[in-house]
């Protein structure tokens, strides 16, 4: 894979600026671009069973997402007989077997897949396509056989939003520290490559790019080490926001002013942003796409047209102007605010919030 694809970069930059189509105020049901696909051949009457092969729930983003998906399913009790969820625990090999078992089990009317790895899941998804309608979301697969592939704008988009914000706040020659989760994951690599391009263009120094494994203690230590080197850090760019507050604490503990920072849409970051008046932005990789997957599957079984072969969802960012709308003291610290779940059954307890 090439994580620095100018064409894709350009495309996502355009998509960020596009006006979405679809119902107002329901970004999970909206889409960017024109394409639609016919699904009449999948039409199925009566109650249906949806099957979902999940890569795993190994991070808070996926936890919120899975809650979204289950809650969305609850909205369709009349149509849905059963939602079968199998969890692959982050193992490609297991997910392939899981999909094979779901397909051969014969219970599923449609299959939703959130692949653990793009390439690995391709053959299994291809095999499943032959038996039943398949909907893929989050990471994709290398085949066009699924009815549709649901995803927000993408990694470049994330990097563009955050990179441009920081570049706009800094002067030429200022320093930015990049904190990343881990190497080699496409959706994360593209975020960094986009931001890096923007920083390079603006003449901003990336003084370091460190991997934190989304470990708060490690994040804080890494930032402390950079502070101790005595180089001024004007901004912190992050490819995911779950350790953003830990990074900020390192500045607090050292008695330094907060840098400009890009995080994500987690509550703890938004709250800190609000209370400590940060100069910040919260780009997102919205968890509401998990809702979309169920909606799409049911639409397909209804025989309705759905956006496809790619269903590109809008990818908003939280900025100073809208910050207050997204802060919700009831929700747990790592709740992703762009969950689109406020109107779903069981909110907020289902997402770990207080009444």
């Amino acid at each position, binding site marked *: 894979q090439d994580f620095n694809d100018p064409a894709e970069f350009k495309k996502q930059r355009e998509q960020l600026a596009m006006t979405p189509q679809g119902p107002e105020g329901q970004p999970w049901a909206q889409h960017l671009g024109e394409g639609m696909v016919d699904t009449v051949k999948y039409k199925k009457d009566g109650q249906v069973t949806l099957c979902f092969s999940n890569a795993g*729930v190994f*991070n*808070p983003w*996926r*936890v*919120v997402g899975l809650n979204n998906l289950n809650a969305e399913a609850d909205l369709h009790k009349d149509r849905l007989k059963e939602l079968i969820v199998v969890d692959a625990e982050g193992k490609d090999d297991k997910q392939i077997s899981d999909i094979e078992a779901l397909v051969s089990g014969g219970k599923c009317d449609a299959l939703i897949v959130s692949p653990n790895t793009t390439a690995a899941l391709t053959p299994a998804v291809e095999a499943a396509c032959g038996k039943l309608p398949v909907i893929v979301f989050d990471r994709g697969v290398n085949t066009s056989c699924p009815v549709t592939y649901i995803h927000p704008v993408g990694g470049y988009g994330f990097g563009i939003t955050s990179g441009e914000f920081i570049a706009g706040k800094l002067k030429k020659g200022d320093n930015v520290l990049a904190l990343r989760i881990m*190497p080699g994951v496409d959706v994360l690599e593209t975020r960094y490559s986009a931001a890096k391009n923007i920083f390079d263009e603006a003449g901003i120094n990336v003084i*370091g790019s*460190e*991997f934190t*494994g*989304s*470990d*708060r*203690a490690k*994040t*804080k*230590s*890494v930032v*402390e*080490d950079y502070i*101790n*080197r*005595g180089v001024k850090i004007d901004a912190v760019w992050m490819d995911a926001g*779950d*350790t953003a*507050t*830990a990074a900020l*604490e390192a500045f607090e*503990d050292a008695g330094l002013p907060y840098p400009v920072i890009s995080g994500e849409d987690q509550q*703890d970051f938004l709250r800190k942003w609000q209370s400590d008046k940060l100069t910040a932005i919260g780009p997102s990789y919205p968890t509401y796409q998990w809702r979309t997957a169920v909606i799409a599957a049911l639409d397909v079984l209804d025989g309705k047209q759905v956006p496809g072969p790619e269903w590109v969802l809008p990818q908003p960012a939280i900025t100073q102007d809208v910050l207050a709308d997204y802060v919700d003291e009831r929700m*747990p*610290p*790592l*709740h992703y605010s762009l969950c689109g779940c406020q109107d779903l059954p069981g909110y907020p307890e289902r997402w*770990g919030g207080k009444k």
Partner: protein
Amino acid sequence: MTTAPQASALPRRPARIALNAGLVIFVVLYAAIAFLQPNYLEPGLFMNFLRRAAPLVILACGQLYVILTGGFDLSMGAVATLVVLAASILINGDPETTWAVIGALYVMGIAVGLVNGLVVAFLKVPSIIATLGAMLSVNGLALAWSGGAARGDLPENFRNLGRLVLRDVPFVGTLPLAVIVLLGFVAIAWWGLNGTVYGKRALVVGDNPRAAELAGTPVAATRILAFVVSAVSAVTAGILLGGFSGVSVNAGEGLELQAIAACVIGGAQLLGGRGSVWSAVFGALSLFALFTLLNLLGLPQALRDSIQGAILIAAVGATVWRGRRRA
């Protein structure tokens, strides 16, 4: 032959040699850090170094108890994670409850330690498997309880344990609370091994449990207590970790292997019978100094793993080699 005069040239007590090994490695690594970044010689930064190393040192001390008795405790990291998540759920931002919850955390830890010990001592499951099972279960429990993501916040007074730095302290300038906890824990760990008969029992149990048993040693109790101490250290480390950087679901990930590696680097012998608190303390400080050094060198993250692996082998290899030259 043992009365022959040459016999006085026999090797000295291994514990003292172990102390030297860990200390020497630590001093060398810290010197390298200071060479790259001279301000690490300032008391403030050294104290900060200790603050960050505190959880690992404490974990290593607990792990040492188990290693001395001949076992392993792989469940420590999971216990630390459980502690962080449980604290955030139970306290849920209310500083009033902090101390009561800390008590509850220790109760949980002790329960895990007891189960580990009982499974090893009475069900005869090798500790590496028993604690692997415990690791899976405890981790699963912590995640199931929290729903897989951090829930609730930790209040200031809890965070302070791992985060607060006292300023204007005589001699050292700044003194992190975590360093006080660290010193207290190491002192207690030292006392347990040197101030009570427990330490000697643990060594004998690790060396030859059968001989210990026939001489009347409560072998099972000695083993179980080691796992309890280990779990208590994991709780303490978890509290410091949560305090230092807040709640996360992977707070304790991988710490168990680091703790084992630390003990071994410091000269403790796997499968028991040899080692002292100093092997754990200086082994852990060495390991942490290595992490810091690699950070400062700015090597790619990935290569740091490689270097860590190579150094682990080299440190143990050196011990083996010196042992062979002596024997």
